[in-house]
């Protein structure tokens, strides 16, 4: 622990506690810290750090995907034409059965007033997306270990699970 942290600690203790308590509190904290000094955590294996560096290099070397502006204009024009055609022919077309799409966020969250529980659900949802994103990025980066371990199947299974189980609860 750096000395500057103990200087700050002393200053804070005098601000928050009596001067008599400040001394014993500082001793307690220093004694606690020394436990960590006496029991150092294991070191990261050099291979672990080397693997991380390799993955970073791969990530940095990945070409960024830019869409050519021409494709964007063509896409936008096609969308406008498609919408115009739907609007024109759609009026005379027989009524189609309505298709409903399930929201990614469970409806219960919108109906609920329980902010704490809803926040937790949304946090799970975000972490789920991050997890999948990480897996997808690893796959895109061509991480041999992950691909060999059948990560693509895992990602797919994960998506199926989300779709079928978790968000119905």
């Amino acid at each position: 622990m750096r000395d500057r942290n103990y200087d700050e600690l002393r200053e804070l203790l005098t601000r928050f506690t009596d001067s008599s308590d400040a001394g014993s509190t500082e001793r307690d904290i220093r004694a606690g810290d020394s436990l960590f000094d006496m029991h150092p955590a294991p070191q990261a294996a050099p291979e672990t750090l080397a693997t991380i560096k390799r993955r970073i290099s791969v990530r940095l070397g990945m070409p960024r995907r830019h869409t050519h502006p021409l494709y964007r204009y063509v896409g936008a024009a096609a969308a406008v034409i498609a919408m115009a055609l739907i609007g024109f022919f759609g009026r005379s077309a027989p009524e189609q059965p309505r298709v409903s799409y399930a929201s990614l966020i469970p409806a219960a969250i919108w109906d609920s007033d329980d902010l704490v529980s809803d926040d937790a659900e949304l946090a799970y949802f975000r972490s789920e997306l991050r997890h999948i994103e990480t897996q997808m990025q690893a796959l895109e980066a061509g991480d041999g270990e992950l691909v060999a371990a059948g990560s693509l199947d895992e990602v797919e299974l994960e998506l199926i699970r989300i779709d079928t189980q978790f968000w119905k609860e």
Partner: protein
Amino acid sequence: MGTGAELTQIIDGCKSGDAECFAQVVDLYGPRCYGYFYRLTGDRDLIDELLSELFMKLVEKIASYKGGSFESWLFRIASNIFHDHLRGRKRQKKLVEGRRAELELRPVEAAQSDLTPDKADRLQTQLSRLDADTRDLIVLRYYSELSFKEIAEMRSEPLGTALSKLHRGLKKLRELMEG
């Protein structure tokens, strides 16, 4: 640890996509972040995974680092990654329990602890007996070497609260180690 100017130079290099500069950050902070994750999880395979995720996140987010304490910024990401992992674990547990009920399987042997500490490491065992919040605070302070002000700010907690939680936690830890 390099000086402030050296670190700024390294971070500038990272922002311009220099893999060598990222490698330097890994060398500088990897061991401490490893210790941080180790003391929180005690599971070496998981630590490798979390550490890798941390540095990949760093690559992704380095452009958003606008100065200030780099350590504070990095450990905030590390802390978020760990908490995301915990949430994911709870979610997985929920899924597994749901599936088990569905298949009417017998519950697997007694609830396993969320932590799988290294048996040889006594400190790790005693740390896992503290509540998660206190453990997080103690470990974060030790490995990040952040000031109390930075830690309290990171945890959105009043300074006095963080200080007294840390004091109580370390005292309890010492009692457990001596007991």
